[in-house]
């Protein structure tokens, strides 16, 4: 009934062959990608090629988008930047997924070349690639028209998908030009002067509907979960509930004798059950009994460790420390301080809880030396390399078909479950769809690390913050330290910022905005406490005593204006404010809360956020992305915590890992952009969630006179704080 293979049936070769008209390919040289005028030219040059954009004679333009789509809108925004610069008629642009080949479709150079859509990178990393390619294609089309009409190219202009010679009123569409184009051997050079000025933009800055949305309201969007191949069987894996445990033995005969079960397969870290339907596989899961070798890992208890051990690591002068940022002479600033402040904070493990449980599909060829993968992935290139490595294949032996992601939030950039389905399919000798149950997705989750933080500030004789120390303690290395650097908005002259390690054998991963959520919480809550202790209005303190940058000042001023900060809210309500930086963007948020004291429940009524996001390519999609980040932040701060007991994750589904529902969402969310000095886009996917915790904690203080120091602010914790 449903067509499951819409996108996957399009191989790269079909794409080139099938596109009558003009194709623009990309050849890869030592220095990176180089746009070529046709696949044929590229082939002559002996390069690794693929059509990236093609113009058909009917004026349809097809662009392969490298913007992996998890709801943030980049599958649309990335190719739209190309269409803008070539002056394409966006209503005639079709999109398809770019293949998983970072040498062609990636950004960055050398070892950093990647297709990973992580760290709010999509729009900002592809901006210059897309607009350069767009300007080059436009030049080819202009040159073609000039020679066809025998007029100087300088007399021509373009309207969407049309070249025009105004003085003779001649016009040719891009499709007409594509069928006659005499394309040069190499693409024309373009420089800054060739790019459109922002006032000339027809698409950038003007919200276009997202390309993926129609398929997401009628059930036709293809997630990996929806792929069905002929002869496909289903699998689910049970991993050791204790991280790092190894399977020793299991009730193989019993499980394999169950209805519809074909086999059980021992994997390095679990047992996979393969059967003819997912229902039968799930039934067998319930009967599976595995002996695990996990004596070592049994000891870890997350709450005990967070409560007792991390503060000791921080207090231990001989504990190993990694410097995150250093500036001036922090020790001297503290030695000469007029006053010193010090505060401690804690934060729990958090789970991505993306709506689509992890899954992937693998199909080997007859000979078993080539595998095709279907994966909704933030990093198709990483899926490809991880599958290849796991199988002992070269990357040429692996093809990856991109699918929509039912949420990513940092979890879907590894290709770990794709590698797992590849191992299973090799054993099963059939196409396999692997689905982790929700329970498995949590039990074998990869989490935002729990941590302890200590912040110290030294005030000079004028009451200005002259010295700053911030130490984070936990497991996860650099997963702990993002967002610790305040230098983008508070230029405190003397700073020492470090992290100290612990190791617990808990799987960790980037989580939306990575370490910013807990670090920004600690930083901005700390500053608020200092301001109050100094008897200075928290905004005035940030503006006057923190050496704030002009950019920081602007987002604060904007959000103050938006929220009417300074007005007296209703007597049962309070406002709180916070700032954050992330991926080149800067954002300031104000929240308005009330409190149900007997339940310990914080209600967030309104959120205002002012963002400096550089050049805003798609304002409505950008706003939607930030709204999403705000809710993600609220959800994690009010509800979400993972705990580990005896080495095993205690939560198992949405009943004990609570995420925000509609009744808890704020009544109003207002997002606005400030005029930016930045000429290029900066990241927006993760600017929404980091400032929320401290804004809530500050509002909570304004309402109750009490301070919150431990994320999340669960109802029990709030009640404890209120009664303390």
């Amino acid at each position, binding site marked *: 009934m449903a067509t499951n293979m819409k996108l996957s049936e399009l191989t790269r070769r079909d794409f080139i062959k099938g596109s009558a008209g003009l194709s623009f390919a990309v050849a890869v040289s030592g220095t990176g990608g180089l746009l070529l005028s046709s696949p044929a030219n590229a082939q002559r040059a002996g390069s690794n090629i693929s059509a990236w954009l093609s113009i058909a004679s009917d004026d349809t333009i097809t662009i392969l988008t490298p913007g992996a789509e998890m709801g943030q809108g980049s599958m649309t925004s990335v190719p739209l930047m190309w269409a803008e610069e070539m002056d394409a008629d966006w209503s005639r642009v079709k999109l398809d997924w770019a293949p998983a080949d970072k040498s062609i479709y990636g950004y960055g150079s050398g070892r950093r070349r990647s297709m990973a859509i992580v760290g709010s990178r999509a729009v900002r990393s592809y901006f210059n690639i897309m607009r350069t390619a767009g300007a080059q294609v436009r030049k080819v089309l202009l040159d073609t028209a000039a020679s066809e009409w025998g007029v100087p190219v300088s007399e021509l202009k373009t309207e969407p998908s049309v070249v025009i010679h105004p003085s003779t009123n001649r016009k040719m569409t891009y499709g007409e030009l594509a069928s006659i184009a005499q394309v040069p051997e190499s693409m024309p050079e373009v420089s800054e002067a060739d790019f459109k000025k922002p006032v000339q933009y027809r698409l950038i800055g003007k919200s276009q509907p997202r390309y993926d*949305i129609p398929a*997401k309201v*009628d059930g036709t969007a293809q997630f990996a979960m*929806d792929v069905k191949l002929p002869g496909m069987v289903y699998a689910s894996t049970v991993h050791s509930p204790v991280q790092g445990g190894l399977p020793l033995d299991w009730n193989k005969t019993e499980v394999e004798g169950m209805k519809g079960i074909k086999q059980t397969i021992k994997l390095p870290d679990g047992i996979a059950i393969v059967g003819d*339907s997912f229902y039968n596989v799930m039934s067998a899961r319930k009967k599976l009994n595995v002996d695990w070798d996990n004596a070592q890992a049994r000891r870890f208890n997350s709450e005990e460790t967070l409560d007792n051990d991390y503060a000791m690591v921080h207090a231990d002068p001989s504990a190993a420390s990694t410097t995150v940022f250093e500036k001036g002479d922090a020790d001297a600033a503290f030695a000469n301080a007029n006053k010193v402040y010090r505060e401690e904070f804690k934060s729990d493990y958090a789970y991505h809880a993306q709506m689509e449980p992890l899954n992937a599909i693998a199909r080997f060829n007859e000979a078993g030396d080539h595998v095709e993968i279907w994966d909704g992935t933030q990093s198709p290139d990483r899926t490809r390399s991880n599958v290849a490595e796991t199988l002992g294949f070269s990357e040429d032996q692996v093809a990856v078909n991109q699918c929509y992601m039912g949420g990513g939030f940092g979890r879907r950039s590894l290709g770990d479950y794709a590698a797992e389905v590849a191992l299973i399919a090799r054993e099963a000798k059939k196409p396999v769809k692997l689905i982790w149950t929700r329970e498995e997705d949590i039990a074998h989750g990869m989490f935002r690390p729990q941590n302890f933080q200590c912040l110290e500030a030294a005030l000079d004789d004028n009451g200005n913050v002259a010295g700053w120390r911030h130490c984070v303690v936990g497991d996860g290395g650099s997963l702990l330290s993002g967002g610790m650097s305040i230098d983008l908005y508070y230029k405190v002259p003397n700073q020492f910022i470090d992290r100290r390690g612990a190791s617990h054998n808990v799987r960790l991963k980037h989580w939306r905005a990575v370490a910013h959520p807990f670090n920004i919480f600690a930083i901005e809550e700390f500053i608020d406490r200092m301001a109050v202790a100094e008897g200075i209005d928290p905004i005035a303190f940030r503006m006057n005593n923190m050496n704030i940058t002009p950019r920081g000042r602007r987002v604060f001023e904007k959000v103050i204006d938006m929220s009417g900060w300074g007005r007296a809210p209703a007597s049962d309500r309070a406002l709180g404010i916070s700032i954050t930086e992330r991926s080149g963007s800067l954002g300031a948020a104000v929240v308005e809360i009330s409190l149900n004291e007997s339940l310990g429940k914080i209600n967030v009524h309104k959120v205002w956020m002012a963002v400096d996001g550089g050049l805003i390519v798609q304002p409505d999609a950008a706003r939607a992305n930030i*709204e999403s980040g705000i809710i993600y932040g609220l959800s994690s701060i009010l509800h979400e915590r993972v705990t580990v007991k005896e080495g095993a994750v205690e939560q198992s589904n949405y009943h004990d890992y609570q995420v925000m529902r509609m009744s808890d*969402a*704020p009544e109003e969310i207002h997002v606005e952009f400030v005029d930016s000095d930045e000429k290029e886009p900066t990241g927006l996917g993760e600017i929404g969630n980091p400032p929320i915790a401290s804004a809530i904690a500050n509002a909570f203080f304004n309402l109750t006179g009490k301070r919150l120091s431990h994320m999340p602010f669960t109802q029990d914790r709030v009640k404890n704080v209120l009664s303390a």
Partner: protein
Amino acid sequence: MVQFTLNGNPVSLDVDEETPLLWAIRDHVDLNGTKYGCGAGLCGACTVHINGRAMRSCSIKVGDVVNTSITTIEGLSPDASHPLQKAWVAEQVPQCGYCQSGQIMKAAELLAENPNPSRDEIIRHMDGNICRCGTYNRILAAIERAAMEG
């Protein structure tokens, strides 16, 4: 053989009657718009209409829907023209989109019985459906728009 009506068409499936309706629809009929989110009646991603009531297909055995009439997102309208679907596009509601079939089916039940719901009625009705991407404010706006534009 289990027989019921699906999106107006008679269906008869040779499946174990214990199979959750969700997997019968997805894996045996190959209609994939109805999603698996939790498998435990907690998230609403699997919401379908059974005789006009929004139900969680992950928690209903296919054997229990014999002779009922079931509607999935694919059957809500032939061409995405249901007022909710149009409003969902107009408000640019979906982020990842994975929860949205369930959201729309749940909202369709509301508008069928209450064409002009208040904000509180919308929230109460929709509160069981999780959207991890946090599109709640846009869902609300879209339901209000659909109610208005009908």
